[in-house]
Each structure stands twice: as C-alpha cells, then as structure tokens.
C-alpha cells in the first residue's frame, strides 16, 4: 500500500514538473493540476496510512486514521481548484489579448492598452 501510494505521488510529481516546463499555457496548467494531485496524496499520507479501520473513530478498532490531514487535504483541494480556475481564465484572456498561448506571450503584445 505504501509503495503504491509513494509511486503514485512520484509519477504525478514527475509528470507535473515535466508539463510545467513546457512553453504553452495549457500544458503548464495541466502540470500544475497534476502537481496539486500529488500534493493532496502526500498530505493524506502524512497522517500515516491505516488500512481496514474505521474512517474516524470506533471503539472496535485500536488504530484510526488521523483526521487532521483529511481536513487539510479538503482545504487544499478547494484552494487548488479556485486557483486553477483563475489561471484558466487568465490564460484564456492572455490568448485573446495577445493571440498567442506562449507563457512569455508579450512578444506579440499590441501597443494600445486595454482589451480588444
């Protein structure tokens, strides 16, 4: 179980970093999303993996999963979702304004200020 989770985190992080280094905004966005998946799994694992037990607490079991990382993951998911949505909007806006989805799209900036 630990090995599976560790491999999953590693693969997600590697794929995320690779995509983030691409030059177009959409792969970068996907890379950030993959990285945030990896982070969420990592946070979840920081409370230790407990298999075949009660989700929170039950007197029939002696070992429980730690509830705090679950709360942290939930918060991180919500925040990550909002940030990704914002980045999508900004990337689309940049594409519309500059006609280019390169992350350094300012080479094609038209001189006049303001939206089209």
């Amino acid at each position, binding site marked *: 179980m630990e090995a599976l989770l560790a491999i999953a985190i590693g693969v997600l992080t590697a794929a995320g970093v690779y995509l*983030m280094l691409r030059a177009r*905004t959409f792969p*970068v966005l996907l890379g*950030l999303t993959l*990285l*945030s998946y*990896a*982070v*969420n799994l*990592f*946070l979840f*694992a*920081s*409370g*230790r993996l*407990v298999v075949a037990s009660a989700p929170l607490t039950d007197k029939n079991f002696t*070992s*429980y*999963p*730690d509830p*705090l*990382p679950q709360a*942290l993951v939930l*918060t*991180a998911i919500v*925040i*990550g979702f*909002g*940030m*990704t949505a*914002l*980045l999508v909007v*900004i*990337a689309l*806006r*940049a594409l519309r*304004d*500059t006609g280019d989805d390169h*992350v*350094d*799209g*300012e080479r094609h*900036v*038209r001189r006049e*200020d*303001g*939206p089209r």
Partner: protein
Amino acid sequence: MSHLPILPILMPLLVGSLLLLMSGLSDGLRRSVGIAATLALLPVAVLLLLRVADGTHLVYALGAWPPPFAIVLVVDRLAAFMLLVTAVVALAGVVYASGGDDDAGPQFHALFQFQLMGINGAFLTGDLFNLFVFFEVLLIAFYALLLHGLGPQRVGAAIHVVVLNLIGSSMFLFAVGTLYGVTGTLNLADLSRVLPTLGPDEAALARSGALLLLGVFAIKAALLPFGFWLPRAYGSATAGSAALFAVLTKVGVYAILRVYALVFGPEAGSVAGVAAPWVFPAALVTLAFGALGTLGARGLREAAGWLVVYSVGTLLVAVGLFTEAGYAAAVYYTAHSTFAGAALFLVADVVSRSRTAAGDRLDIPDVMPRMALTGSLFLLAAIAVAGLPPLSGFAGKVMVLSAALAAGEAPWTWSVLLAATLVVVVALSRAGSALFWRTSEVTVAMPAPAIPRRAYWAVGGLLACVVGLVAWGGTVTEYAMDTARQLADPSGYRWAVLAGREGLVPDDRRDLQ
C-alpha cells in the same frame, strides 16, 4: 477572552463581502466605505500594539479549543507592529486609488479588503497551515488586483506571477505535510516544542521540510533566485495596489523571521539554524541585483519594483544574521522600507500621469504640470529609499551595518550594502534628472490630466511617516529592540500559547492512532 485579536481579519472580511453583495452602491459610497474600513484598522492596530507593548502575548483560540488543537491567533510585538505598518500603507493606497484608479475595473475596494484580510491573517496566525490559507487569500486578491484595469502588459506579467505562486503553494503543502508527518503538529509553538526531541532520521526529514518552506517564503519575499517575477508585475499594477504590494514582500520576510527564529530557532536541537547558511548569501545577491536592476530600469515604475527587491535584500541581510541586533534592525527597516517603497510607487504613478506623452519612461523627454511639487515628493521618496541622511533609510542602514559588525559579517555586508546604495543613488539621480530636467527638448506640450488632490495627500502622508520614523526614532528603535529580544527568546511565545503544556510528551498525540 478579548476579541480584539481577530478584528483585523474579520473587519476586512465583512466589509469586503458586503461590498461584493451591495453591487448597487454608487461609486462615491463605495469609496467612502473602503476608506472608512481601512481607516478603522488603524485604531485596532494601535490598541493591539499598546496591549502587547509590555511584552505580553495575546493568544486567541478560535472556538476556545485549547492549543495546540484547532486554530490559534497570536499577537506579539512583531505581529502588532506589522499590523500597524500594514494599516498605514493600506490607508495611503486606498486613498490614492480613490482618486480614479478604482474605476478601471469592477470591485476594486472589495478586493482591497480581502487582500488586507489575507495580510493581517498571515501576521496573526500561530499555525503553519493557516499561514498557508492566509497566503492563498492574499494571493488570490493579489492576482485580481494585479489584473485590475486589465491591459495586455499586465496579463503577460500576471501569468508568470500566478504560475510561480501556484508552484510555491504546492511546495508549501509538501513542506507542511513533511513537518506534520514528522512532528504530528502544525501549531508553531507546539512545533518548536516537539522539534528538539526528534531522532536523527526524523530530524533530517524536518530539515528538508524547513528548507522547502524557506523556498516558498523566498518566492513571497522575492528573495533571489525566486524574485525575478516582482519588478515587472509590481511595475504594471495600478499604483494604489502596488503601494499595498510593498507590504506583501514583507509578509514573506515576516514568515521567515517567525518560522526560523521561533520554530527552528536556537533551541530546536538538531534542526536549529537550518535557514542560516542560505538566507544571508541569498540576501546579499538579492541586494546587489536589486541595485543593478534599478540602474537598468527603463521606467520609473520598473525602477520602483527593483527597489522593492533591493529593500528586501537589505532586510533579509539583517534577518539572515539571526542575532538580536539583526532582528531589531530588520524590524525598524521593515517599517521604513514599506513606507518608502509605497511612496515611491505612488510618486511614480503621479509622474507617469503628469507626463501625458512619455508616461514614466526615462528615455523620452516630456514636460509636466506642478513640476516643483512632484519633483520635491520624488526627491524625498528617493532619499528615503536610497537610505541617505537625514531620513529613516539612513538610520535603518546604520542599524543593519552595526548588527553585521557585531555578528562578524562586516566585510561582505558592508561592501555589498554600501556599493549597492551607491548604485541606487546613481540610478535615482539619473532618473530624477531625466524626468525633471530634460524638458527643454519638448516642442509640443500636451494638456495634462488633472491629478486629484488626494493623490498628493496619500504620498505626503507616507513621506510624513518616513520623517516620523526619524523624529520619533528613539521610541521606534526601542520598540524594535524589545521586539528583537522577544524574538530571540522563543520560550515566551511557546509558554503563552501552550500555557503549561510543556510537560506533554511529543508522542502523546501520535499514539492516538
């Protein structure tokens, strides 16, 4: 339990939400509400400052859960001081923006309040995960303010900022997960209690978590090699928000000070002083780069952005010494550099609006109305930022230099800091002469737009604060020294939060599994 400590978070939250809901308000009313809400933070910050000035820690446990469980807010001398500095700069920023910038896009005042909520929360929180949450709150408001009055230039700069900070957020969570996995707690006071008891394997993990965190804080503070995003982003933001952004880098510096003085401080056993080998050299490089960037800037706003990098470098040189004198210098210089940096952003905007044809470009000559007034404000702001006598930048620099001398780091600090100051003085003199003296080549004078009177009041107010830092220098320095003493001895903070829980064995809570 007094509810005073949570007010700096709740008030902007409520006002911001109300402003969002009541979209039918007229512009004038919206401005008045925004200014009034920002003004109201000032007495709260002063009250908190007076309450903690004698060295007490105000601990506010949300939901009255006993720490280290649940969320806790802690006000000590440093946090109260930062709240006051933020309130002053925010007031100047919002007053300036009310002169017309806030019309350029929707919901400026609501976003401004949310930004304040995030900044104040980051100063108040006593918990690593909440530091993350408040960072995200201030960042999302920061992105929105950056894009306020959208133009292609800003969109380009914004993508870099957002991507970089999203990576930073992921790194923050990795660090939080690592530290939680090792210690079983995220409360700063509790962390500082548990860390010295770690075994060698766990200490190695905690060290890597700590250094990841340093990377995150370096992005926020614009410490090189993570700071290249700042000048372009700040330079393209509207002036009122850019003034508030001058506080944002200080949030990163505050986090470094808080985490590495308190949690990974001298008493942290095998993880003590984990940041010390990195912060000081990186700060020196940042300082040098900031000065060179100022020299190479093509416009006054861009120069102001580089000067923020330069002042962060100076600040972190003081922090990076990790001595009491260094902390004291950092506290004093924080107030100074925030006021001076914000004032320079506002002056740069006044200049760029006055020069209708050339904007803030240094290479194109242009005339401007009210040149004497604008020029005098620029001169004062430039003297303050560069750190020349008689303004507070000079006093702050002397404190940094003498702290470095006492810590035995004088050769590097003195040479780099003094050389960088010289470069900045050259850059600012060049900018000033290009802006204010090269006017004879202009043949066609364009009608300049009227700049509202309140813009000058905002700049003047900030510069008055810089003067005040010198005039009441004794009081401020004394307060900075007291703050440094409190920072250098983290046991007071720990005791205040955990209140006698020192005896708790670190494995108590991990055993619950």
